[in-house]
């Protein structure tokens, strides 16, 4: 064996297995062996479908499952889809935005308490945050249906307090849908918030206090900015799934509270693939654009 790196000596003791006198092979290819199966899976069943979705969105809208679909570059599908379904689009984004804001407002104190105040209860509290989510998403949402039902205690209390009219209801309203979204995606807010709060060196907050910050100022000037990565991650992890959700709107709302997810689902159900695809692509593009702008504004590119 000769060395390719200018060390031609062959030590007799070391030569037999050829290891010592020649440079080890650089097995860069092994990275590809490790990567390839999973990467191919994602290309085949995530990227390709996305391309196919875009293609489908440009099919002749008059096609059907029986007659097949023809590629006619029908950009009009987008115009039609937005024309017909602008309202669920706007509604869906609005509901998701409200739910995300609510998650942030109620999730932040919880994450803060776990990170800084829980002491030896920290692990238990973390388990408790996740535990409810071992119960099926749908089963939980059905439980909310019961909680918010017309003769349930929440409506009863709300009526007593005069928050809703005597014949008013919560179920099948936007309120119920937003409540469902908020509840279902809360852990996605709490966990990233907790992670980034946990990382904060507590001495920084003490230093702020030492430098004449009131607790409120210390929070606003030190804790909150340092927890921004968690806020960004949490809001994205909450907003994205809720913007595409249709379960809450279906189980807790009615026809007037439909979100864009409901429309996409029902369009696919009836075989109106081009319209459904056009709506999906629009939703995806909007979300990707919002995520990109949001991440850039928040200055937390390392999130990726």
């Amino acid at each position, binding site marked *: 064996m000769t*060395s390719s*790196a200018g060390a031609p*000596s062959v030590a007799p003791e070391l030569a037999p297995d050829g*290891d*010592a006198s020649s*440079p080890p092979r650089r097995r860069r290819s092994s990275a590809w062996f490790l990567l390839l199966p999973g990467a191919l899976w994602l290309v085949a069943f995530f990227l390709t479908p996305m391309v196919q979705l875009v293609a489908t969105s440009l099919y002749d809208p008059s096609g059907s499952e029986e007659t097949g679909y023809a590629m006619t570059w029908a950009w009009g599908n987008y115009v039609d889809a937005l024309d017909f379904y602008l309202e669920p689009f706007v509604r869906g984004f609005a509901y998701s935005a409200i739910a995300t804001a609510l998650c942030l407002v109620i999730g932040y104190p919880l994450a803060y308490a776990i990170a800084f105040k829980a002491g030896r209860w920290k692990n238990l509290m973390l388990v408790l945050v996740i535990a409810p989510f071992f119960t099926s998403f749908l089963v939980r949402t059905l439980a909310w249906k019961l909680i918010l039902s017309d003769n349930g205690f929440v409506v009863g209390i709300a009526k007593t307090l005069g928050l809703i009219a005597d014949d008013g209801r919560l179920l099948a309203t936007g309120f119920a849908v937003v409540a469902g979204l908020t509840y279902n995606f809360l852990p996605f807010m709490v966990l990233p918030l907790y992670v980034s709060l946990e990382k904060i060196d507590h001495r920084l907050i003490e230093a702020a206090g030492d430098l004449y910050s009131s607790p409120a100022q210390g929070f606003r000037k030190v804790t909150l900015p340092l927890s921004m990565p968690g806020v960004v991650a949490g809001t994205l992890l909450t907003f994205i799934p809720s913007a595409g959700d249709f379960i809450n709107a279906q189980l807790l709302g009615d026809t007037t509270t439909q979100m864009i997810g409901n429309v996409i689902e029902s369009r696919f159900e009836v075989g109106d693939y081009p319209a459904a695809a056009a709506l999906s692509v629009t939703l995806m593009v909007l979300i990707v654009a919002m995520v990109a702008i949001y991440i850039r504004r928040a200055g937390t590119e390392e999130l990726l």
Partner: protein
Amino acid sequence: MPADPVSGAPPPGDLQLLSLTKRFGEFTAVDDLDLVVPAGSFFALLGPSGCGKTTTLRMVAGLEVPTTGEVRLGEQDITWAKPYKRPVNTVFQSYALFPHLTVYENVAFGLRRQGRKEVTEPVRDMLRLVELESFGARKPAQLSGGQQQRVALARALINQPQVLLLDEPLGALDLKLRRQMQIELKSIQGEVGTTFVHVTHDQEEAMTMADTIAVMHRGVIEQMGSPAELYESPRTTFVANFLGQSNLVPCAINGRDGGDLVIDAQGALVRMPAERAQVHQGKAWLGVRPEKIILGSPGEDLPGNSLGEARIVDVSFVGVSTQYLVRTSWGQELMAFEQNTGARPLMRAGDQVHVRFAGAHAFLLDHDQDARAGVDEDSAA
């Protein structure tokens, strides 16, 4: 494959590095390095961070592959041998103890990998050597820094390597513990007789422990020798500044007078032995260590060379000694340390003094070198 390092090992040989070079892309970390570490010695590779000392160590350990050059151990070429096929073990920086294994299993790891069935005895002996007999069942996380350091040492030494590599082994310890471990390490080395190659950026640590020190800078060895040799006769400005402190006075060599060089140091004519000079004509740096400078009262008649009168600008009392900063007539600031023997009264800032030194303690360096090389490097004081 090298013979079993535990049983029937060939007699330990010198560690030789021949034209060893390591490039990372454009950056040359180690540049055509030649080095012989005699078997059984305590050898230190000293240099600031990024000087290539750790890369050199990793090439000896087999964790890095040289770009060109050779690593030999006695008669064996181990340049391309896998790390697990070399009779060389490493004490890693911050130890790299296996967190999921007990202290006992950490120490037994190397023996087990070599197929040794009976490990109880040697592990117990080794734990005794590092005074951790009762800690075998603990996990590394449950030990103090100094204890972890000793486990790392035991884990490597138990394999009876021909060469033990220590990569900043004491860097994570506090000062007091570091001093104590320095002495312990040295005595363990004396006991086992293994070649120790110790990488550090701490000049004091290197001087305390090593028989031989190689000072590395920018991928090359600047100077190699015993601690005293390096300190008393540095050959480059980098070594002069990195090992201890030096006053470097710009000067010109006037000529030779017998065994001495006659030098014009800013108007003062001084003499020093020619063998202590790296250059013999033209411009040069005249180097004098601060403790070799003698500050006398003006007019006081003292032996040695005179650098003329100077004014004290700063006085730091540090207990065993007093450190003076003086400004010479040509405006340079020199450091002078004086032992607090009580024989002489303390001087005060503003006092006029006469600066003297003995020629036999001075050194003369190449004027082309940067007088500030190594001054602000991270050598721990």
